[in-house]
């Protein structure tokens, strides 16, 4: 399998997983909330492809499913977790936003993951493990002061951290221009942290830039701030979308699946998609069969 085929399969899996969740919500099979990653798949796949799940650490945010799937491949544990079942990666206690599996963590409060990631990077540096700690932020997270405290500490203490800022242009419903002043890379550059910025949904371009970023963090042991401008097609969570439909439509041409898919032979692409669909169907069936959390009092 070529790199692009592998990446396409991962992106397609994330897309269909997230669409499946939204369908299950509409069918009343899921309760609570979820924040889907539809449209941003190339970021997770492009960046995480350069990380070693045995050594490196990923700390993600409320919109964490794409990162989780790309890092762990664990569809069943994630679906059971969102369904609140004991087979979930956190026994159904964490739910959609609060995941932990090996070197993967996520938490649901904007910005609060950055200090914890900073401490993880500090510990890994002290241990000499060679781990790169990657923390995924959004444009909305830039409103949180803790982010800047940690950019300062990461730079001062020369921590092997990769900050990945996915700018999807909306903090829930608030457009970027109402929440983020100045430019995004300059915020990191002010702390003496090297940056790169891409405005693309092409997984091949993101893969190349992320490869350079991860290599640099690993070889220098110093932080790097990678800005990925992107777009989410799905609502912030469910049914809270007030964007102009024409704006969303205009972005469809840049759908990362369409961009990557156009470079694949049609038949090969359908084979990949069919394989992902079959795997996902098996996961859904198994998760639906899995026992629910017991409510018996101990």
């Amino acid at each position, binding site marked *: 399998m070529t790199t692009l085929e592998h990446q396409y399969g991962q992106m397609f899996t994330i897309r269909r997983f997230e669409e499946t969740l939204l369908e299950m919500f509409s069918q009343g099979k899921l309760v609570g909330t979820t924040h889907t990653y539809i449209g941003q798949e190339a970021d997770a796949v492009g960046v995480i492809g350069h990380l070693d799940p045995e050594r490196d*650490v990923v700390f993600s945010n409320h919109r964490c499913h794409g990162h989780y799937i790309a890092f762990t491949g664990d569809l069943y544990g994630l679906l059971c977790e969102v369904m609140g079942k004991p087979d979930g*990666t*956190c*026994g159904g*206690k*964490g739910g959609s936003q*609060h995941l*932990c*599996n090996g070197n993967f*963590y996520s*938490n*649901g*409060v904007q910005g*609060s993951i*950055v*200090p*914890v*990631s*900073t*401490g*993880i*990077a*500090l*510990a*890994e540096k*002290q*241990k000499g493990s060679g781990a790169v700690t990657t923390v995924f932020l959004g444009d909305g997270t830039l409103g949180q*002061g*803790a982010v800047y*405290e*940690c950019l*300062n*500490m990461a730079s*001062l*203490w020369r921590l092997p951290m990769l900050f990945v800022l996915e700018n999807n242009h909306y903090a829930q419903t608030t457009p970027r221009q109402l929440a983020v002043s100045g430019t995004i890379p300059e915020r990191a550059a002010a702390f003496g942290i090297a940056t790169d910025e891409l405005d693309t949904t092409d997984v091949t371009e993101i893969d190349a830039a992320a490869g350079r970023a991860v290599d640099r963090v690993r070889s220098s042991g110093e932080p790097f701030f990678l800005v990925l401008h992107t777009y989410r097609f799905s609502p912030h969570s469910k049914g809270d979308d007030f964007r102009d439909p024409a704006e969303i439509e205009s972005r469809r041409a840049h759908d990362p699946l369409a961009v990557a898919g156009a470079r694949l032979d049609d038949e090969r692409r359908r084979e990949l998609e069919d394989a992902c669909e079959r795997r996902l169907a098996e996961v859904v069936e198994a998760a639906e069969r899995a026992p629910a959390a017991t409510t018996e009092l101990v």
Partner: protein
Amino acid sequence: MPAPKRCVLVLNEALHELFERREDVFLLGEDVLDPYGGAFKVTQGLSDRWPERVLTTPISEASLIGVAAGMALRGRRPILEIMFGDFIALGFDQIVNGVSKFREMFDEQVTVPLVVRTPMGGRRGYGPTHSQSLEKLLLGVPGIHVVAASECHDLGGLLDDAVEDDHPVFLIENKLMYGRPNRRPVDGYVDELRCLETEGPYPALTFSGNDFGEAAATIVTYGGMLPIVLDAATELILEHELFTEVVALSQLHPLELDPVLESVARTGALVTAEEGGLTGGVGAEVAARVQELAWDDLRRPIRRVAAADGIIPASRELEDVALPGVADVVDAVTSLAGVRS
């Protein structure tokens, strides 16, 4: 017998011993480097001996508890010093939405063995934002342990217990305590008072002036209020011919109640005494639980002694009005209906 060491020195020596014994212990905080050695000098000498394990930080309390949590998640035993207990307010998101939850919400896949040491308390004229006793704000947070050190506790033992604890521990120290002698029980006595100490981590101390004979009330307290309550207990004996039992807790959360219940079973009355504000305080929680569990033992309503609900003024004279003193504790005991004076 040599005079007891001051509490700050006892804590400092305990930290040095911990650093010698455990290579996974790290210390973070503001201004902790030598020669300054921390605002209250608790960390003096550590950075000279272990420069790689002592990290001075920017003034970033909103993040520092999270940084310590990240280290703890990856197998370290970090000790974070927050210079003034008041500044813990900046770290509440990390406490409430992070460190306290990781273990349970990640289904026991992780532990967060971090220690936050911080001094609370007033009576030094530091004013409204540097004098508070805010530990009551931590009491409702499940998943953490809140421990209060007093001048009669084994301070090195408390620190060891906290570092060995797999839960996040908030070790509440006290600014006045640092400069006072660490008055440990000798042959079961602290000065003239008989003193019993519970077994296990985070022990409680129970004091009696008449070897646990008949007593008018139990006074439960902790931390920097202990010397004030002991002075009140002495005054009650000398001026009012009233004996009391004094319980000094160290484990505030989860609340260790057994020594209180045992004492109340003997005395039949309870006064709580704390330096923090009255409303929603430690005393409120103790009172609620004791009346649920020991209603039949209680002869009188429970009385609470605490700071007034308001700011702690900078003026020493006004501060003494705002904070509870010996007279407040004496009044609470003597005013219990039916208690002779």
